[in-house]
């Protein structure tokens, strides 16, 4: 394949720093001469009455605290660079961003789908609705409870788009989710060019038609996709970061539908899709059993007691019961410090109990040990709130009144319980010092979902 053709495949749909292009300079220069590449300034500035207003043309960041101005030896002037997308190569006033304006590359229109799994009637209905929205080009919210098998519901809509010769992106806020999705999609679409992009991963397949990417990576796309699916649409940091949401919009072609998949949609996401999109609600888990409803148990001064090296009585009873019955358990804490204070106390009950949090490198290994019943239980921060399945796990939250345990987090945490057959239920207890609005809301929401009629 000619280098020119590879250049087209690479740059079409991307926005890339000129000095980081994976092609010889002459190839790029030639395409520029042919008018196939548009060049724009990396960071643009506008004088306003209260100073200079900067915009990053790659990530669309406009927050003045996310720019740094320095005396630049390259453009020999005060030059601003964007700190928001710095880890993808620095974009500054004097750097050039390239986009493709030539003819677009064509993609294959015949894709094999290697998946014979059975969908429940509820799943079939949701898939059909999602497919219809895709055909109509309308944004869709797939509101599917934890453990409802949502990835499988995306296969048919993805297959449809691929067979149209169009480009699809499946985006998720966290790299863990991307790495978990990749093997499932390569199995489902064995002949399709698939690429996973996340921090540190190089672009290898210039002609990838199905791209899995962390939402951050979408900064480097520009009107690339005919459909984007955003998985775990409520997860940090996507909810917090407005520029990430703009990045998703920017990576999609104008008028391309953006679908959201989540177990805990924000009210904003629900409102948006009610107004200008479609919604499918999947209230039932794939095994058909209701979601576990949390029970609340008052646990006063748990922090003070833990600081005095004492496990509060009710929590102690709950834990020893799990140990006696040999049920794996997760105990969630709102704070690393408190959890680490508690760790040695729990180890007196069983020395194999240990704590995990975001910076533990062997986090995945410890979860695996819990799954294999090598260790009886884990203490954890909210890092384990989503994405993990442990048969027959029982869950307790210590300090459920803390603000970090909002409605979405509590529903996700409860979603760990009763995921697989035959243990389709289990204990989900909220130890608290006063019931919060979020706890009430989470309970109400779970009850409401459990009451929802399901198609037979």
């Amino acid at each position, binding site marked *: 394949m000619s280098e020119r053709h590879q250049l087209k495949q690479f740059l079409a749909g991307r926005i890339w720093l000129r000095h980081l292009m994976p092609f010889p300079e002459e190839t790029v220069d030639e395409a520029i001469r042919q008018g196939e590449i548009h060049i724009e300034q990396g960071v643009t500035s506008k004088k306003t009455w209260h100073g200079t207003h900067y915009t990053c043309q790659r990530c669309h960041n406009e927050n003045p*605290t996310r720019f*740094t101005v*320095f005396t*630049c030896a*390259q453009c020999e002037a005060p*030059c601003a*660079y964007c700190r928001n997308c710095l880890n993808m190569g*620095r974009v500054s006033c*004097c750097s050039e961003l390239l986009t493709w304006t030539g003819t677009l590359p064509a993609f294959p229109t015949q894709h094999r789908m290697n998946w014979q799994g059975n969908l429940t009637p509820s799943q079939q209905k949701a898939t059909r609705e999602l497919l219809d929205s895709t055909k109509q080009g309308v944004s869709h919210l797939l509101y599917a409870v934890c453990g409802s098998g949502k990835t499988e519901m995306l296969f048919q809509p993805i297959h449809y788009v691929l067979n149209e010769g169009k480009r699809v992106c499946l985006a998720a806020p966290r790299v863990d989710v991307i790495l978990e999705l990749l093997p499932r999609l390569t199995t489902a679409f064995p002949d399709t060019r698939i690429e996973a992009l996340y921090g540190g991963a190089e672009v290898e397949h210039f002609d990838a038609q199905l791209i899995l990417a962390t939402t951050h990576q979408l900064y480097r796309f520009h009107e690339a996709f005919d459909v984007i699916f955003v998985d775990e649409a409520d997860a940090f940091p996507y909810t917090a970061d407005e520029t990430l949401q703009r990045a998703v919009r920017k990576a999609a072609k104008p008028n391309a539908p953006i679908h959201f998949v989540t177990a805990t949609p924000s009210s904003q996401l629900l409102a948006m899709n009610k107004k200008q999109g479609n919604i499918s609600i999947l209230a039932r888990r794939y095994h058909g059993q209701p979601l576990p409803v949390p029970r609340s148990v008052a646990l006063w001064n748990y922090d003070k007691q833990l600081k005095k090296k004492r496990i509060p009585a009710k929590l102690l009873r709950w834990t020893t019961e799990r140990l006696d019955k040999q049920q794996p358990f997760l105990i969630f804490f709102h704070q690393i410090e408190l959890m680490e204070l508690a760790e040695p106390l729990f180890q007196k009950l069983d020395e194999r109990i240990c704590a995990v949090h975001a910076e533990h490198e062997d986090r995945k290994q410890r979860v695996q040990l819990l799954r294999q019943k090598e260790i009886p239980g884990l203490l954890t921060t909210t890092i384990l709130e989503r994405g993990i399945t442990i048969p027959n796990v029982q869950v307790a939250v210590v300090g459920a009144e803390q603000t970090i345990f909002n409605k979405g987090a509590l529903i996700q945490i409860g979603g760990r319980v009763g995921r697989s057959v035959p243990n389709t239920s289990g204990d989900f207890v909220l130890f608290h010092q006063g019931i919060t609005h979020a706890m009430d809301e989470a309970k109400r929401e779970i009850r409401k979902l459990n009451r929802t009629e399901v198609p037979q």
Partner: protein
Amino acid sequence: MTCLLCDKSLDYQPTWQHFLGIQQDTSACPTCLEKFERIDQVIEDDRLDSVHSLYAYNEAAREYLHQFKFMQDVALAQIFSPSLRSVLNDSKKIVVPIPMHPINKRKRTFSQVDALLEAAKIPYQSLLEKTTESVMGEKSRSERLAMTELFRVTADIDSNEAIYVLVDDIYTTGTTLRHAAEALKQRGVHRVEAVTLFRPMREK
């Protein structure tokens, strides 16, 4: 404000120092700052009258220099401003940054030592010019020893009696600093000291 290294928000807790104006503006959170190991190691050398290294070149330092120099995050220059100010506070001494070769400087878009000093608002004189484009770390030991002249003095030396302080980001073999000191001494300077941000510590 958020921490320049980890992006977590910096909660300002005004203290009495703050009101008296001694509190220096912090740009990184305590958790990140704790990862840098302060050593304040001072050594003497045959051609350098003293070399003062502030921090150990540990994992945090390696990451810091990577983001600052390689990722070109100029903003990180301010993280060490308070420590640099405290050791370069003698107004009688003349501060001289180790320069980059003009071509390399243009490529990087800034010179890291100048940026460190500017962020700390420490006055300096650019007396030296680098004569070779290559980087010390890329050379073998014999190549390093065979090199005759790395720096040229480009301006007039005001006073031979004054103490000159060379500043560099890291002290590794010492070749760079020794060559710079030699260049100044050949122009009649009596005493040349050096301050570096980092220095690798021997394995214990």
